[in-house]
């Protein structure tokens, strides 16, 4: 009896298939590189107390992606966004990022995570070698620390150290003019709050050496009631107060401090006030709170910026957030880099992105740059002003000077042992 081969899959083709399969599973984005659409994965926070971070990031990304797709896509390939909710948990963000690349076949990542999650996604990018742009994490060390540096990751976000330098410079000017020597601080008790406040005080004292901090308060993140903090500050009788509370915590604080008439008794510097999420929510916004610009459509005061803010509002029926402009900018960067590289290959795009300057409505001079040495965004509009209770909320924003920022940032990096 002779053995007959059954029709079907031979051993050789099985092996070939298995080999192909192995390659696909090991590096799926290579195997699918020829797909017509290009998938971009995005882990972000879509539920929980800071869901607004994710929704306003997603909205901005979709607004820009629609424009890119309408103009023919990335090197002729339509963009398909795959956006997943990490619930703000770092381990979940890392898992999702990995899955987006390995299972869903995403060829690039936009990391819409807050600082805690972004470091986890960064490790995934390091491991998989996939092109990754961080779009929400403001923690300076993410790009300033050379240990974090990888060729395929970029940060398209404002940065804590930049904000501290500009904020302290602005505050020192007012402190000198008005003789504000006794300061109090009140910031949330976690890494961001402590670091940002520490850096602000450091530079404030550098610019205005006779400033003295006489009272510090560190309420818990998401604390519902700040009454004891408010009264403690009133007891200390400072001339000025600095706070980096944000979002709902900041609006609670303002409502509670307002009925103690705190804002009439001292100058208040709240770096996160000038964000529409807070500005539009507070019903009795005190006049004259000093704030950094988060996103405001009147700064930079250009038709491009105003048009972008209005287009966003028309589409989503609310104003964009700080996260929105950063995510929109990331898509603009990708679009320009792919055009220049004439390829959607992650490595080639990363090479072009390094040091790339693009036209952008959020640039201090109409352009922003992805700085070559540390892959981070510079040249964006950054400034401080005082609030009024109705639109445009912060009528006159004083722009920070990027030359000073660069000088002091370099010193700061040195002091941290980063350079």
């Amino acid at each position, binding site marked *: 009896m002779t053995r007959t081969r059954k029709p079907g899959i031979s051993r050789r083709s099985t092996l070939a298939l298995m080999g192909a399969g192995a390659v696909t599973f090991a590096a799926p984005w290579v195997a699918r590189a020829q797909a017509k659409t290009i998938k971009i994965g995005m882990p972000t926070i879509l*539920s*929980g*107390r800071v*869901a*607004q971070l994710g*929704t306003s990031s997603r909205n901005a990304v979709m607004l820009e992606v629609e424009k890119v797709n309408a103009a023919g896509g990335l090197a002729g390939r339509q963009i398909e966004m795959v956006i997943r909710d990490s619930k703000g948990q770092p381990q979940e963000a890392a898992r999702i990022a990995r899955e987006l690349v390995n299972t869903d076949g995403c060829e690039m990542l936009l990391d819409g995570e807050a600082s805690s999650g972004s470091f986890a996604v960064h490790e995934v990018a390091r491991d998989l070698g996939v092109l990754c742009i961080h779009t929400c994490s403001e923690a300076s060390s993410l790009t300033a620390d050379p240990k974090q540096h990888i060729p395929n990751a970029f940060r398209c976000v404002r940065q804590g150290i930049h904000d501290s330098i500009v904020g302290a410079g602005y505050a020192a000017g007012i402190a000198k003019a008005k003789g504000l020597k006794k300061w109090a601080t009140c910031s949330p008790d976690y890494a961001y709050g402590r670091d940002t406040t520490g850096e602000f005080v450091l530079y404030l004292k550098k610019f205005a050496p006779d400033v003295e901090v006489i009272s*510090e*308060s*560190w309420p*818990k993140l*998401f*604390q*519902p*009631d700040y*009454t*004891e*903090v*408010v*009264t*403690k500050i*009133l*007891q200390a009788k400072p001339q000025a107060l600095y706070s980096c509370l944000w*979002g*709902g*915590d900041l*609006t*609670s604080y303002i*409502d*509670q401090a*307002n*009925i*103690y*008439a705190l804002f009439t008794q001292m100058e208040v510097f709240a770096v996160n006030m000038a964000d529409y*999420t807070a500005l539009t*929510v*507070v*019903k*009795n916004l005190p006049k004259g709170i000093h704030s950094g610009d988060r996103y405001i459509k009147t700064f930079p005061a250009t038709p491009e910026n105003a048009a972008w803010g209005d287009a966003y509002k028309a589409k989503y029926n609310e104003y964009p957030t700080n996260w929105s402009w950063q995510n929109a900018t990331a898509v603009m960067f990708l679009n320009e880099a792919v055009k220049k590289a004439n390829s959607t290959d992650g490595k080639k795009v990363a090479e072009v992105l390094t040091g790339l300057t693009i036209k952008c409505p959020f640039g201090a001079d109409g352009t922003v740059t992805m700085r070559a040495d540390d892959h981070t965004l510079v040249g964006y509009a950054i400034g401080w002003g005082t609030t009024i209770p109705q639109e445009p909320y912060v009528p006159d924003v004083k722009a920070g000077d990027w030359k000073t920022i660069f000088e002091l940032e370099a010193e700061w990096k040195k002091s941290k042992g980063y350079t």
Partner: protein
Amino acid sequence: MIPVDLDALASCLASPACLVTQTTSGLIIGMLLFLVAVGLTLIFGVLKVVNFSHGAFYMFGAYFAMTVYQLTGSFALAILAGAAGTAILGLIFERVFMSRVYGRDVLMQLLVCYAFVLIFDDVVRMIWGPEFKSMGMPAAFQVPPLFIAGGVVPPYYLLLIGVALAAAVVLGLGLARSRIGKVIRAAAQNPGMVSALGINTGLIYGGVFALGGMLAGLAGALAAPVRSLTPGMGFSVLIESFIVTVIGGMGSILGALIGALLIGLIRSFGSLGFPLFTEGLMYLFMVIVLVSRPTGLFGKEVA
């Protein structure tokens, strides 16, 4: 930053201005906490269930008040809506869901409550959106604070303390003196006998749950002008309410009042003397009470 600043605490205790400010600040925190905790303790005393979803009623109270305030512009109506809305919600929740798990395993009750914590949060997200909201201070209270002996006291907080105190007195007298109060106390001790005497215990249970929900809703409505509204806002309040009931004794109304005021005062004076340990102070106090009096300061069987 100094972890212990006894000088600041001592100088505050010596100054009447600081004393007035910090004491009222403690009273406000305490009274709002009392309204939430007393509902929790009442429900436990009578129904013998720990209502882990109690924070949700605080949240709904705040959202109801904000919505009605935006629609009508009347602050009184807003407070009323916060209280009445959560009472109805409490009644429905008790009759449809909680009544099914009485006498069951504690884990089962906990699971039902926890499920509703998540469901209620999502309902709020669907109706009002995920972003934080602010109700805004009614115009009548947008006035400069009062200065009593040099201390700062916002008029709105006087109203808040007054309303909460009134609720405490009405509740205490009602339970001690009125016929319904007697029936409730009897049902807490021996529901079988109360039922045998021809009284509808289901109605009593539903009523007590509605009352508990209403008090939490009232707290939420009163807090709405000064605290930001978010899905999940009930959670941190719930944790502190548990500390209050543990300190005061599960099931005791007086215990809830004393416990809540103590927590409020610990927070307001603790933030001066122990700025880095204010939260810890609360828990430390709870541990001391638990060790020395495991039933809590006023813990007996029932209210």
